[in-house]
């Protein structure tokens, strides 16, 4: 039996003047699933998230969370969602505990439940020892952790993270990714937007590639890579007679293309790692002296490039 969908978006649309920011976005997230929206800046990720969280009126389409339709005034549906905005949304002149207590109260927590949950979240984000310090005395990484912690306060069923690692140092970034990974494994449904391909590959069970307001491809990493034939590249830097070697390598099974130029042989192959010993053997036998080997396996960046003709960071 398949898990029911916790979030369903159907044909979401949003227009700003002449520009169609979101153009018919549809996807779903199952209970316990981490779903990534991967796309470059300006692709429509934040607008989509804003409509999902009920922050923004949509021009068309439907959002249902935990069986409840979402709109700006849909308080019951909003209570299920934990929202972590891209920019820090904190009060710098309040302490970490005061920030958590304030947003906790808005999330209908009170009394001992609120106090207990604030302490739990402070432990979770590693700020228990700085709980009573003002936020403006925090480092950027600490602020990021608090920003995420606020979204977790009310034990949401769906955590929505909008590019949480933008502008974060590598150490803090890694800590954030580890936390999100753990939350996902604990069974929380997560919607994670990013323009970092490696984050989507590391964290997400399924990924929707979004560009110009439309989801242009969706699936697991393997399914997406399969869209472009799932072929690896094997690059050999070599000396000697490369022409005959390239010709011999091109005749091998699982080698689809073989070209050489400037002391370099490039092969398009299937399963490069298993084929490598045979390639080296044939190259040596045909007069090529291999100095180094590079295996390039297709990734989401390549998928995006294949689908849109541009790089993710364009």
């Amino acid at each position: 039996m398949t898990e029911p969908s916790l979030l369903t978006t159907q044909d979401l649309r949003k227009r700003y003047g002449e520009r169609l920011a979101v153009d018919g976005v549809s996807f779903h997230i199952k209970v316990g699933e981490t779903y990534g929206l991967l796309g470059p800046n300006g692709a429509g990720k934040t607008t989509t998230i804003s409509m999902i969280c009920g922050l923004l009126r949509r021009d068309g389409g439907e959002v249902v969370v935990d069986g409840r339709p979402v709109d700006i005034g849909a308080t019951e549906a909003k209570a299920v969602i934990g929202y972590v905005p891209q920019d820090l949304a904190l009060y710098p002149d309040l302490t970490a505990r005061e920030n958590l207590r304030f947003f906790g109260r808005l999330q209908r927590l009170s009394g001992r439940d609120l106090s207990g949950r604030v302490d739990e979240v402070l432990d979770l984000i590693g700020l228990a020892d700085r709980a009573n310090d003002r936020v403006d005395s925090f480092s950027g990484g600490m602020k990021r952790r608090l920003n995420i912690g606020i979204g977790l306060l009310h034990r949401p069923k769906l955590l929505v993270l909008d590019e949480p690692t933008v502008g974060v140092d590598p150490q803090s970034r890694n800590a954030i990714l580890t936390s999100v990974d753990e939350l996902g494994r604990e069974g929380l449904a997560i919607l994670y937007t990013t323009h970092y391909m490696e984050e989507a590959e590391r964290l997400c069970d399924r990924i929707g590639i979004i560009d110009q307001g439309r989801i242009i491809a969706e699936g697991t990493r393997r399914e997406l890579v399969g869209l472009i034939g799932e072929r690896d590249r094997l690059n050999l830097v070599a000396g000697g007679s490369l022409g005959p070697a390239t010709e011999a390598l091109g005749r091998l099974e699982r080698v689809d293309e073989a070209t050489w130029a400037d002391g370099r042989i490039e092969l398009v192959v299937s399963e490069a790692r298993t084929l490598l010993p045979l390639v080296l053997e044939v190259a040596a036998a045909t007069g090529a002296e291999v100095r180094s080997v590079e295996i390039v396996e297709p990734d989401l960046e390549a998928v995006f490039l294949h689908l849109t003709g541009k790089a993710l960071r364009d």
Partner: protein
Amino acid sequence: MGAALTIALKDLRQRLRDRSAIITAIAAPLVLATMFALLLPSNDGGFHADLAVVDLDGGPVAQGLVDGPLAGLEAADVADLTTVGSESEASTLVEDGTVDAAIVIPAGLSAAVSAGGGAEITVIGSPAAVLAAQVARSVVEGYANEVEAIQLSVTTAIQVGDVGSDPTTVGALAAEAIALPAPIAVLDEAAAAARQASSATYYAAAMAVLFVFFAAQFGVLGILGERRNGTLGRMLAAPIAPATILLGKLLVSLVMCVVSMSVVVTVAAIALGADWGAPLPLAALIVATSISASGIALLVVGFARTEDQAGAITSMVAMTLAVLGGSFFPLTAAPEFLTRLSLLTPHAWFLSGVAELAGGGGFAAIAPALGVLLAIGIVTGGLGLLRARAVVLAR
């Protein structure tokens, strides 16, 4: 309501930590009120004028003025009357400052009125005592209106044929009418015109109402601050209605306004000897003024894009209303059109309410001021809520 209170308490905590709010809402009005009260001429002890009266008529109409409204001013200890024999003598007394103003009743006034005609009563005022001349003019105008009303009723009687048109009969009827108690309380009107708070009270009230507009911005301007800070989106993502956020901010404005005015009133009473009259009507006046200021501030926020822009517009609105409303100089010395224009400002109504209370009035006396202040607050606040809701949802 719980979430609105949570937002308001959070904001108030922030404002307490932000000393600029305390400086703007409390310290600044107190300092300025003290400076005004100390540096400007004092009329503590209430308004009092010395008036000269020249009765060149001696008839019943002149007698009605002297024995009626003018005697009433004397009885109420608002004015002392000195009878002089000629206009030139009266002018001299005004010029040398012996009296503040003089009222010259021309010869033949009663006869002219009895014949259905008119005559001019002259008020001679001194530039050094503008308020006294204003009071004298107000009393005479009130009496002139009274006489005109009586004339009208006499004329009407002639037209319907109840009495004959014999001039003697008409004159006797007019004299009889004048002798009757006035249908309109001229004395009360004169006393109200003369009512003015002491310098300390006036300037403390003027500064309190001026700065309450700056105090009001600390709440509702927060809407734009939350938007800039990104926390507005986070609030909207919580299970609360957008209107709750606005209500929370409006509560902060109201509390800031009430606290600001209350502190200024209390300190002015203790330190400057300001007389605010009955405390409960004063509290109602403060709350009504705070509602009015908060409504206007919310309306400003609805039209601004940034906090800086809203702050600049608020300053402009506050200063313009303060000038028009009499926060910098008493409107008794202002031209009539300005006096009328001032009625559009909360400042004028608050100051008139304070004057009423300082003069011993109660809820009934300040009812018009309360009504207008609440109406301004409700209208501007209502429009402001509509505009500000769009600001909240504009992302």
